[in-house]
Every structure is written in structure tokens, then in C-alpha cells.
């Protein structure tokens, strides 16, 4: 977390065996890229390497003594507590399938295990591995400056949170854009989870700046996080296919990460250790929530293989056609939704307590920003829930829309076990977050062989007055479900008749459309339109859109005219991108050297 004092100056230690497993994974990935024909042989070895990384790191965090000793290369590797993110990263790497995902996992491992400069290089590599490289120029420049700033924290410490926010914006999927066109919103893969882990690692090791700068950056990041959360939820609501919906949801998780970083900076600036500890625990829970994204991505991989392209305009009725896979996918969505009793709810609960305990000015003027932030966050949460209702309504409910979709079925048992195994970690973290937090915080066991934090299954608010028991909540909900299931079994003896319900007075459908007209059921475009109708009347919205388009056209014309005057001195020649990049980097380094 950006609150660990002297994060850059700690002893530099990494277990040799973990390093060896990482190197083996990187080597195998490179071999896979060179010899794609041998994929079937190499894949089990890759999975074993990544699982080994996760397991060994877990053992190291639990206080176990690993064979081979430690590597201590100052300036190359990170300190041991900062390596905790290798644990979820190993699980993500084991679940990765495509070459791009594997490359992103190796890049994220470099970002997690490396010292600041290496970490920034790893984050830049993760950006490249995710694709769309030409669009990430500002992020790369910011990462370069961040690396320089981490080396000279006394000179540029006040600027680092801003640089980190810009640099990790691409990795966390942060954007204020509401557009959902394919070039604006990329599909979700394992590489995105790896990139988020890399970004979390960068935030975790941010050196401390001045108190005033931290306070200002903290407030800015919290406000920006609320706005990012809302826009990401809106993109999830409007996205045209299932993978892009998940990209929107992951953007919301990225916004929560930014908010937590802001809260951490505020806690550090105001010297509030309780709030800082609570924010750090929430941060680690968010790392656990990324495993829900992993489950969803694995389920979508299998669904894509069985039912074809995941466009929401094509899918339908998967809940009946592939019930087991759909149940696992729904579980991942429930964890992401923030409804009880799974991990998303615990995070929302902690975030709410953190926001309420935020230091602020007394009286109404000091509280209004908090109320505004909560209202924006709440609207974002509502839109996120509606996006989840939409994907469930269109994908899992209803009737198939295409013959390929109608032919979908649950995959072979082996593939189902794979998806189930991907879902186990998030279930364990949801039920027993104390175990996850104890592991990730590197709490060493006591002499009697017990962990002090392991017994603490409850999550507490920053002031310690409010307590949440996730395990008890899960048990309570399961108990209510069991009671209702028993009542249903005892009371409903007579079978229910099933009738075809697709006609509804419409003429008989043609023989090639065996499931009826697909347009008569709920489509992916309906929820957003209904929500807009609820907020603003249609006629007013059309007027506003026309005024916006007109204003945009005028602004573009003005900007073009202004730019033409400025660029007139160069006779209309444009400066190539790489030249501008090099010039900006040289300028920034000169600035830092001058400040030093």
C-alpha cells in the first residue's frame, strides 16, 4: 500500500525457488511463442510452474522455510512482504491459456517481484502485452517518470501519486469515456487481471511524499475513483458482448483500487494508523476479488468454445442449456455485484466504513463532499447491478437466439472441473477472509503453530466499533436457503406442467427459427434506454444530444483553426510520435536532475 513507510529502502529478498519457478514460466512462455506446435506438451508444465509460484509464495508468506535460501540483489528485486501479490498472480497464470495472457502474467510477475525501476518496466510490458500499444503513450511516459521519481523520491515525491495514477490508468482500465465502441472498450481476458495485479503492486510500493501533497492527491484520487466507478459501470451496462461487460466491471474494480489508494494517502497524511490498516486490508480483499474475475474469464472461455461468439445479440437461454457452467458464471457475477454474502459485499462494507471515517472539516461544508461522493458511488453501484441484471437476462435467461446458441451444452466433465477449480479460491476468500488477509500480510505463525490473524474471521471498521462476520453471514444465508429448500421439497408434491410460451398471439414462426422470434424477448439495448428514460425524458435527451453534437463540432472547428495557426510555423508538418516521446522523456529527466 502507498502507506508503508520506507517501502523502497527495505531489505531486498526473494526466495530462490520462487525465482526459479518464475524463470521457468517465462522460458516456457517464450518457447511456446517460438514453437506453437508443442503447445499441448508445454501447457501442463506452464500450469505447474505458475501453481508452484503461487504455492511456494503462500508457503513463504506463511512463515515456511523454502529450500534454496534467498536472493538479495539490491535494486533488482522487491522486499518479501511486497511479493504477496505473487500468490494471486500464480493462480491467474495457471488459468491463463492464450500466449498474450501468459506474456502479461510474466510481465506482471516482473512488476511484482522487481524493485521500482524493474517494476515500472514490467508494468509497461504488461501494457504492451494487453495489446493496443499505440494508444498507451501517456501511460508509458508516466511509468518512465515514475521509475525516475522512485529512484529520487526526495525530489519528485510530491508528484508520484499523480504519475502512478496516469501510469496505471491503462492497466486498471480507468477511463471517463462513456463510449462502448469496439476500439474504445477491449474484451476481457486473463491478461487484464494480470495487468491489474501489476498496477496494484505499483501502488503498494509508492514512496511517501509530503503530508500536504498526499492529502491533496488523496482527495483527488477519491473523487476521481467515484467518477471512474460510475463511468465504468455505465460502459458495462452498454457493452455489446459479455467480455466487454466484464471489462466494464473490471474497470469498476480498478476505480475501487484508486479510491483505496487515495484513502491510504489521506490516512498517511493525517497519521491515522487505524484507517491505514483498514485500507490495507481492503486492498488485499480487492486482490482476492480479482480471483472472481478469473473465474468469470475461465467460464467465458469455455462458453465461447461451446456456444460461439459471446455477442449479447446472439446469446440466450444458456442457464438451461448449460446449467452447471451458468451457475459458476452466476457465482462470479454475484461476487462482483457487491450483494451479500460473497466477497464483493465485504469490500463495499469496508469501503463504506472507510469513506465514513475519512478526515474532513467540521459542519455541513465539510460533509457535503462526502455525501456527494457517496451518492455518485451509489449510483455507480446501482448501474453496475443493472449491468449484471442485463447480462443475466440476456445470456442466462430467455430463449436461444441463434442455432449455434441453441446447440450449446455443458462441456465435458474435465473442463467443468477446471472452471470449478478456478472458483474455489474466491469462495474460500469470501467465506474466510481472515485466512486470506493473514496470508497476504505475511503474518508468521506463533510458537504454538497458530496464526494470530487466522482466528480473526471478522472484518472491522477503522475505529473498531463496527464488525462484519462474513463466515457467519454465509452460514446464515445458507441456513435460510436450506430451510426453504426443505419446505419446497415437502410442500410441492404435484408436478408442474411446462407449456410452450413463445407464440403469444404472434403468427407461426418459420421453420428455421425454431425458438420463435428472438426480438420479442428482452434485448441488450433495453436496460440502458429504460434507465435514461427514467432520468431524463426522451425529448429533452434528444435536444441535449443535438446541442452536444453541435457544441462538439464547433469546438473541433475552433481547435483546428487554433492548431493551424500554431502549426503554421512548421508548414503543416506533424512531429512523429516517437520523436515527441523521446523529447518528453529527455525533458522530464532534465527537470528531475535540475530539481536534484
Amino acid at each position, binding site marked *: 500500500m502507498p502507506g508503508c513507510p520506507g517501502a523502497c529502502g527495505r531489505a531486498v529478498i526473494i526466495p530462490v525457488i520462487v525465482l526459479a519457478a518464475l524463470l521457468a514460466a517465462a522460458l516456457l512462455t517464450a518457447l511456446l511463442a517460438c514453437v506453437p506446435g508443442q503447445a499441448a506438451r508445454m501447457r501442463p508444465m506452464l500450469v505447474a510452474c505458475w501453481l508452484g509460484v503461487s504455492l511456494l509464495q503462500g508457503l513463504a508468506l506463511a512463515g515456511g522455510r523454502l529450500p534454496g535460501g534467498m536472493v538479495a540483489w539490491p535494486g533488482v528485486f522487491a522486499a518479501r512482504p511486497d511479493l504477496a501479490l505473487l500468490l494471486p498472480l500464480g493462480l491467474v497464470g495457471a488459468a491463463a491459456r492464450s500466449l498474450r495472457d501468459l506474456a502479461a502474467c510474466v510481465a506482471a510477475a516482473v512488476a511484482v517481484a522487481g524493485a521500482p525501476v524493474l517494476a515500472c518496466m514490467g508494468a509497461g510490458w504488461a501494457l504492451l502485452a494487453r495489446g493496443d500499444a499505440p494508444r498507451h503513450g501517456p501511460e508509458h511516459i508516466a511509468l518512465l517518470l515514475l521509475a525516475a521519481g522512485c529512484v529520487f523520491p526526495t525530489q519528485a515525491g510530491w508528484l508520484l501519486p499523480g504519475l502512478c495514477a496516469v501510469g496505471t490508468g491503462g492497466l486498471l482500465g480507468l477511463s471517463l469515456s462513456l463510449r462502448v465502441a469496439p476500439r474504445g472498450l477491449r474484451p476481457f481476458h486473463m491478461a487484464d487481471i494480470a495487468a491489474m495485479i501489476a498496477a496494484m503492486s505499483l501502488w503498494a510500493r509508492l514512496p511517501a511524499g509530503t503530508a500536504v501533497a498526499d492529502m491533496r492527491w488523496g482527495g483527488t484520487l477519491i473523487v476521481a475513483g467515484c467518477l471512474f466507478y460510475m463511468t465504468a459501470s455505465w460502459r458495462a451496462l452498454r457493452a455489446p458482448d459479455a467480455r466487454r461487460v466484464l471489462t466494464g466491471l473490471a474497470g469498476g474494480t480498478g476505480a475501487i483500487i484508486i479510491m483505496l489508494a487515495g484513502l491510504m494517502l489521506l490516512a498517511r497524511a493525517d497519521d491515522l494508523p487505524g484507517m491505514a490498516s483498514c485500507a490495507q486490508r481492503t486492498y488485499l480483499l480487492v486482490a482476492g476479488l480479482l480471483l472472481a474475475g478469473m473465474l468469470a474469464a475461465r467460464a467465458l472461455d469455455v462458453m465461447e468454445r461451446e456456444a460461439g461468439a459471446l455477442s449479447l445479440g446472439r446469446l440466450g437461454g444458456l442457464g*438451461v442449456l448449460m446449467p452447471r457452467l451458468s451457475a459458476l458464471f452466476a457465482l462470479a457475477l454475484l461476487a462482483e455485484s457487491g450483494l451479500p454474502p460473497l466477497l464483493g*459485499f465485504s469490500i463495499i462494507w469496508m469501503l*463504506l466504513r472507510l469513506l465514513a471515517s475519512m478526515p474532513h472539516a467540521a459542519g455541513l461544508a465539510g460533509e*457535503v463532499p462526502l455525501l456527494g461522493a457517496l451518492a455518485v458511488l451509489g449510483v455507480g*453501484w446501482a448501474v453496475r447491478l443493472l449491468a449484471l441484471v442485463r447480462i443475466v437476462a440476456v445470456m442466462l435467461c*430467455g430463449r436461444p437466439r441463434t442455432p449455434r446458441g441453441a446447440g450449446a451444452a455443458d462441456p465435458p466433465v474435465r473442463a467443468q472441473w477446471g472452471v470449478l477449480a478456478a472458483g474455489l479460491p474466491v469462495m474460500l476468500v469470501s467465506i474466510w477472509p481472515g485466512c486470506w488477509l493473514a496470508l497476504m500480510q505475511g503474518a508468521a505463525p506463533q510458537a504454538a503453530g497458530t496464526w494470530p490473524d487466522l482466528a480473526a474471521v471478522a472484518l472491522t471498521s477503522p475505529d473498531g466499533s463496527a464488525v462484519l*462476520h462474513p463466515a457467519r453471514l454465509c452460514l*446464515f444465508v445458507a441456513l435460510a436457503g436450506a430451510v*426453504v*429448500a426443505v419446505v419446497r421439497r415437502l410442500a410441492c408434491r404435484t408436478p408442474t406442467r411446462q407449456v410452450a410460451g413463445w407464440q403469444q398471439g404472434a403468427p407461426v414462426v418459420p421453420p428455421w427459427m425454431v425458438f420463435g422470434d428472438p426480438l420479442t424477448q428482452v434485448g441488450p439495448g433495453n436496460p440502458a434506454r429504460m434507465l435514461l428514460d427514467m432520468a431524463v425524458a426522451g425529448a429533452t435527451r434528444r435536444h441535449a444530444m443535438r446541442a452536444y453534437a453541435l457544441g462538439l463540432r464547433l469546438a473541433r472547428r475552433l481547435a483546428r483553426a487554433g492548431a493551424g495557426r500554431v502549426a503554421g510555423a512548421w508548414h503543416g508538418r506533424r512531429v512523429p510520435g516517437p520523436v515527441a516521446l523521446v523529447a518528453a522523456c529527455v525533458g522530464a529527466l532534465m527537470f528531475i536532475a535540475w530539481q536534484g
Partner: protein
Amino acid sequence: MVAPFLAARMQALLLAGWHMALVALMAPVWIALLRWMATCMQGGRRLPDPLAHWRVLRHAWRQAGVRSAAGAQVTAVAPWLGLAAGLAGAGLVPSFCIGLPGSDLSDLLIVGGLLEMAFLALVVTALAAGLARPGHAGLKAACMGIMIQPVLLLVCVVLGLCLPDGTLAGLVRQAHVADMNVVRVPLALVAAALVLAGVEESDGAALRLFATMLEDLAGPDRAVALYARDLLAVVWMMVARDLVWPEGIVEPDLVARSWRGVSLLGAMGLWAAHMLLACGCVAGLRVFVVSAGRQHAGWRAGLALLCALMAGVLLFAGRGAD
């Protein structure tokens, strides 16, 4: 040491069973009385029939079960899931006493989340078959009902400022030892916000949407979905009642003092009276506030958000003045 512990546990289990039975049996009664009050306010003249809604449910239960073949497996499960989530929510909201087994889980965010889950399960029931009218009605209901999330967040923060632990059981405990008149108005505004956003009975349009959602369902599934919807409305009203009159709830100690049984009966009577009043308030909202010529769908959500914001502003302004 063991005997008092076991006695306390047994007492908590006994009270929890009684609480659940009371809430589960009375939910359709409150809905029937609420509809009668709304009819009276609209000019209708007829005698109250508290068991009318129970008869509707019994009639639906006895009908032959019919489901659309498409999505039949989802339709078979979703109403029961909604019922389970609603019952879990009802188990956490104190009715006449605290000290039930799940009282430390009675955080408003947990209760609201469980009720929201029950609501979404009912929406999925409408969407499962892929039919046009129920599906679009379900989606519209989801758009209207989902706006409780910002209200819930604001309410939780306001409640967190009034209480140390933010739970309803904590509110009741504090009401027994402290003067609640200082925060009575913000809490009443919070209760109004929750009732406006959560109780569909306060909006005629939402009721019509719900009827459309279930129009192709018959048999036990329909009865369970109807009952779950009633339970949701009643639990939201109970939450509002607990926020406004927390003093009406007692802390039981049947083992130590024998006369406490009398106070429990009194608390149950008070609960019934308060719920009747809450039904009247909801009927008044439905007749005079929400449906009085204002057909815009966002009206209810906007009003609820305004109430929650006003509660926060009042609370903070009061603190600033102190």
C-alpha cells in the same frame, strides 16, 4: 456456567422462532390492510378483510402449476431463492425484541443487500421464460427498484454517524440508554427514503409492473413469488419502523425476571400498532405522493434520494451547530 449459557441460547432460539412465525404469518395480513387503507383513501367504502391476501395466496398455491417451457428450470428456482433471501432479511430485522441469534448481523447494508437480492430473484423469475411482456416489465421494475443502492449507502453512513456499530440491534440498545429525540428527524427521513425506494406498494405503477411480471406463472411458483414480494414490502416497513420507534423493542430476559413475559406481549402489541401506522403511511404515499398525477418513473427514486440527502444534511448541520 454452562446452564445459563444454554438457557440464553434456548431463549434466543425460541424468540427467533416466534419472531419468524409472527412476521411470516402477518406479512399478507399487513398487505391486505395496506390495500384496504389505500382503497379507503381513494374513496372506496368497504370493511377491512385482513385475510383477503392469504386467500389469494392459497388460491394461487392450489392451482395447477404452469411454467413456460423455455427457462423452466430457472423459473422453478428463482422465486424460492427470492423467498429464502427475503426470509434471511426478515430474520435480521427485530420486530418486538432483540437478542436473536443473528442480531450482530443486523447491519442495514446486510439487510438491504439481502432484500435487494430477493427483489432481483423475482426479476429473474420474470425474465427466465424469455417472454416479451413479463421480461420488459421485469427489466423496468429492476431499473426502478435498483435505485435503492445510492439511498442505502447514504442511509448507512447517516446511521453509522448516529450509532457506534451501525446495526439495528445497536440502535435499539442505544435507544434504551440515550435520548433519541436529537436524531429523531434524520432517522425519520431515512425511514421515509427506505420506504419510498424499497416498498413497491407505495407506487401504483410498480404494482402493475409486478402483476405483469408474473402473469404467465401459475401454481406454487406464483404463490411463492407473490408471498416473497409481500415479505419484502413488510420487511422494509419493519426496518422503517425500527428506525423511527426503536424504543418499542425490548431486550428479553425471560430467565431472570418472570414479568418480562408481559413486557414482551406489550412489545408485540406495540409492533402491531406501529405496523398499522406504517401501512397507513405507505398507503398515503401511494395515494397522495407518488401516484398523484406524477407518472415519471424516476420520481420515486429521486424523492428517496432527496430524503436521504436531507437526513445527512440535517444531521451534519446539527453537529456543526453543536
